[in-house]
């Protein structure tokens, strides 16, 4: 395994955990559970 692979895995794991700790999944959930008018082309 390249050294950089390990570094990237650790870096992005930390980023993801930080995002979870500040409640970002709830923000994703809120957006994804309403019909996105932009996505369907009438926003």
């Amino acid at each position, binding site marked *: 395994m390249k050294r950089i*692979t390990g570094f990237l895995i650790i870096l992005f794991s930390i*980023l993801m955990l930080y995002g979870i700790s500040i409640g970002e999944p709830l923000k994703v959930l809120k*957006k*994804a*559970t309403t019909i996105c008018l932009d*996505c369907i*082309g009438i926003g």
Partner: protein
Amino acid sequence: MKRRRRLTQWLSTLLANSYWLFLGNTPIYQGPLKAVCFPGLNCYSCPAAAFACPVGALQNFATTLRMGLPFGHFGAYIIGLLGLTGAFLGRIPCGWLCPFGFLQEWIYRIPTKKLSLPRAMRFGPYVFLIFFVLLLPVLIVDESGYGSLWFCKYICPAGTLEAGLPLMVLAPDLKQMIGALFFNKIILLVIILGLCVFISRFFCRVVCPLGAIYGLFNKTSFIRLEFHERACVNCKTCFKICPTGVSFFNGADSINTHACIRCMKCYSICPSDAVSISVGSMKSKAITSDNISRTNT
């Protein structure tokens, strides 16, 4: 390998769109799984979608960046999730999991004259990623400081196909809101799917910002391909079968170029075992010390 990939693509497409209760219930799924992003391009406004779309979620953070920064919300969760997927798998999700990629493979089966794509167009996905997903949603904001989902709104054919068209049937109230934008997106969808008939994986190769993100990790990902030049017999079978036109047998591309969607067709078909899969420090095939000395990764 071919059967395994096809089965994985079917299962992945069904899993990403596993909410069939929409037929007698709410138009879209509203449960907790929607907090998790699916690794492929699958619109979260699709009535059957069970997960969130990573490109939509990333843009959503970009649109609220100016408002979100004071609270520390800059999309770390999505960036981390995408980066982690890329660091482990590279573009494997494109070749094995993405429902829209799977659809393009079916469309390309329509028998007609096939065309190749100029190499310069390989950088198209980075243009869409940088401008439509990252810059425009942050830079162009309304008076309250919120941006717009530029890629979803003006480009994404998956949103039009999986959400726009079905919701016109399932949610008649939305029909009254249809305008020029909707028809523009329909035209764009027809053009993109039409080009997919002639050009293999056209959308993945020229437009998809998600593939662009994963492609950044192809060279360093935990699972990689390796090309053993000395074992190669120059039969060009790998180039002929490659859905994204990667040409590593003659050194024009690295086998782990950002354009490779890791479908592993070259690995399966190579008659001389010149392609191997490397998982961490393990290799899929026994490589002799003779050819490993000329390995080109």
